[in-house]
């Protein structure tokens, strides 16, 4: 495992340097250079211009500039944002990063969980009207024009029914004079959810490891989940910032549901076809011949193997989900990296755009890594080399 991980990390590093080089090339392809953006007025004398170019290192040969760019990135220096002067790009980005990751992760987990369950069930009860409805719905969700879908969702649930706030991260009026900082509260929320998830994961592992009976096991798992969720709720109920926490959670829901629904369609369809393929395998017949219950065959023998293609598809879908994240953040005015990125494009804030693109690349790389590790955990036949 360590050998595999170190190999993958080296590979990731190389890929990332290539990616950074492409970002740098794109920046070079933009008309003019940064000094033109900084001093737009033609009245500024040439000498000042040249001095600024020298100070920014733009008079040096391209290779030196390239080297400076790459090394500076690894030192964490991504320059100063033009549109949010005098904030550093890294400060701006790292403030927005947790929001993007939360949006992205919760949508993915929701989509994966729901998609896997429903895909499993419709493949098992094949040939009914329900299956048809689910397939058509799944395909529609997968091919729907996402920006439009998000607008419609925002209109229906945010505006028409008024169940959710219309965009943004917090209700500013509520937070004014509260003495709480949204970023701090949000980080505390993430931490608490993370701790509960880890505890639940450990307990779940032991239950699965030592239980004999599938039915009691599933009951125990459900109980643990209920306990974990209610523990989380209780903790936040007792917290002094509970209205503000609820406010953030309320704002998070609609974007997560929207992004999750679209990813749900794809996961469900892939799970269904993977299940259909595993259900035709000989070991399913063997399991039936052994007289195992339907539920054991479905959940233990078929669904587990059907999980593999779903994981692969996740890798392929990663770049799509990142794109979807940008659209979601724009439409829901969710102040994450995607929104920063688009705003940066709009005002040609080049350092910010380049930084956001690079961080997105890092996210994509880690997504791939996680999917790879999951894959090897799920399928022991794949040797870790």
């Amino acid at each position, binding site marked *: 495992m360590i050998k595999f991980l170190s190999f993958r990390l080296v590979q990731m590093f190389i*890929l990332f340097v*290539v*990616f950074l080089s*492409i*970002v740098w090339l*794109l920046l070079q*392809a*933009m*008309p003019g250079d940064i000094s033109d953006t900084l001093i737009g007025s033609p009245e500024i004398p040439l000498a000042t211009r040249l001095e600024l170019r020298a100070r920014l290192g733009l008079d040096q040969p391209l290779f030196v500039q390239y080297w400076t760019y790459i090394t500076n990135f690894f030192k964490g220096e991504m320059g100063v944002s033009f549109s949010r002067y005098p904030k550093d790009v890294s400060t701006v980005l790292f403030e927005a990063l947790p929001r993007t990751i939360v949006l992205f992760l919760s949508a993915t987990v929701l989509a994966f969980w729901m998609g896997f369950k429903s895909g499993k069930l419709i493949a098992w009860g094949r*040939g009914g009207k329900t299956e048809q409805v689910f*397939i*058509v719905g799944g*395909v*529609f969700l*997968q*091919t*729907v*024009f*996402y*920006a*439009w*879908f998000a*607008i*419609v969702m*925002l*209109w*229906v649930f*945010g*505006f*028409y029914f008024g169940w959710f706030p*219309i965009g943004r991260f917090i209700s500013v009026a509520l937070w004014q004079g509260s003495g709480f900082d949204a970023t701090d509260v949000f980080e505390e929320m993430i931490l608490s959810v993370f701790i509960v998830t880890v505890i639940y994961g450990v307990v779940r592992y032991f239950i699965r490891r030592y239980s004999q009976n599938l039915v009691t096991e599933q009951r125990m798992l459900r109980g643990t989940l209920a306990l974990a969720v209610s523990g989380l709720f209780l903790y936040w109920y007792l917290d002094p910032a509970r209205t503000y926490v609820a406010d953030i959670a309320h704002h998070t829901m609609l974007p997560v549901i929207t992004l999750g629904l679209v990813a749900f369609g794809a996961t469900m369809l892939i799970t269904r*076809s993977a299940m*259909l*393929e595993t259900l*035709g395998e000989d070991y399913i017949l063997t399991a039936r011949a052994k007289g195992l219950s339907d539920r054991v065959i479905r959940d233990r023998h078929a669904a587990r193997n059907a999980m593999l293609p779903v994981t692969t598809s996740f*890798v*392929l879908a990663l*770049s*799509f989900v*990142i*794109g979807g994240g*940008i*659209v979601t953040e*724009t439409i829901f005015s969710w102040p994450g990296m995607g929104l920063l*990125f*688009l705003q940066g*494009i709009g005002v*040609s804030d080049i350092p910010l*755009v380049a930084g*956001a*693109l690079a961080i*997105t*690349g890092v996210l*994509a*790389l880690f997504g*791939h890594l996680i999917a790879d590790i999951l894959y090897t955990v799920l399928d022991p036949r794949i040797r870790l080399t």
Partner: protein
Amino acid sequence: MATKETIRLESEHVDDQLDTTVLEELVRGEEVTATPLWKIRLRLFRRSFSQNWGLFKESKMGMVGLVIIAIFGLMAVAHPILMNTVWDPLVYHPVTGYDSVVTEYTIVEDGAVVDPLTELELSEARFELNPSVKVGELVRIPSQPAPPSLSGEHPHFLGTDPLGRDIFSQLLYGSRAAFLLGFVAALTTVFIATTVGSIAAYYGGAIDGFFMRFADLILLMPLLPLLIVLSAAVRINMVMLGVFIGILSGFGAEAIVLKSQALSIRVKSYIDAARVAGGGDRHIIFRHIVPNVLPLSFLYMMFGITGAITLEATLSFFGLLNVPMSWGIMINTASTQGYLLSGTNYWWLLFPAGLAVSFLAFGFFIVGRGMDEVINPRLRAR
């Protein structure tokens, strides 16, 4: 002579009737006129086509998809015809046309408005229209977006957009743009992916390694952000975007899929036979491997078109593409003019374009699924 032999051998497979007659003639020692090769190929093609068509017809969703694509195809064809015959370009041109709903208002004293639909306050009219209007005058105020109208001098089946342009005309024009983009992207993808996949599978080794690592790199790229940056730097039009998407997916995911398919073909005995018969590398790749990979690549082409259409709509929704009109731009116009949350009040601004993108993508996707069932026997419902 050798070619005639092979032709006869191939024709044996084609038609049993022909087979026996040819044999009889041969036995009688008569001179046999060989069927030209292209005729045999055509017949083979027609036969496999009708076989596959039979399988495809069984998938109901695939047929629905074909109907959807056909409807959009008709729309794309109809636009230039309508523009040249029925529609006045000054009113119906998708980009420069203009029309509006004209409402007549009577100017009344301030605070004396009884019916706000036909009467206007004096101060408001002076402020908004013309400082010299008087009480009792009739003013005509054009307003867009106009709701759908089926009759009148210039009927607008789907109303007009916030700039007074006919939505139906834009919708038809947009389907032309979408087809252009989809086919450019798909053809580029298929061309690159089959070539790269076949070459990588045939040669293996370093060439394979290079192309596969390259594909990994492309898979890693966040496509939409990169395209956004690119469109900020370069003015991208429809064909360029199509070629760009085609290159990325051709060297990326599809190259991997088609390579694995080409690998399974490379080990078939007829490849060995071709090599023994003295076929060169290029001959084997383009005459034996590529034709066998093509069906699968057409399948992925369908999914590729879906992706390209959605990607284009997203980019033009952000207003980043240099195209005169497309479905994404229609939604962009509605949202930048402040109709983002207008919902059902101005449904013709958001719904036709959004549904058109979704349905065309849906159509290509389910045709792809139908073809998948033809190519992958395991998926068939039996």
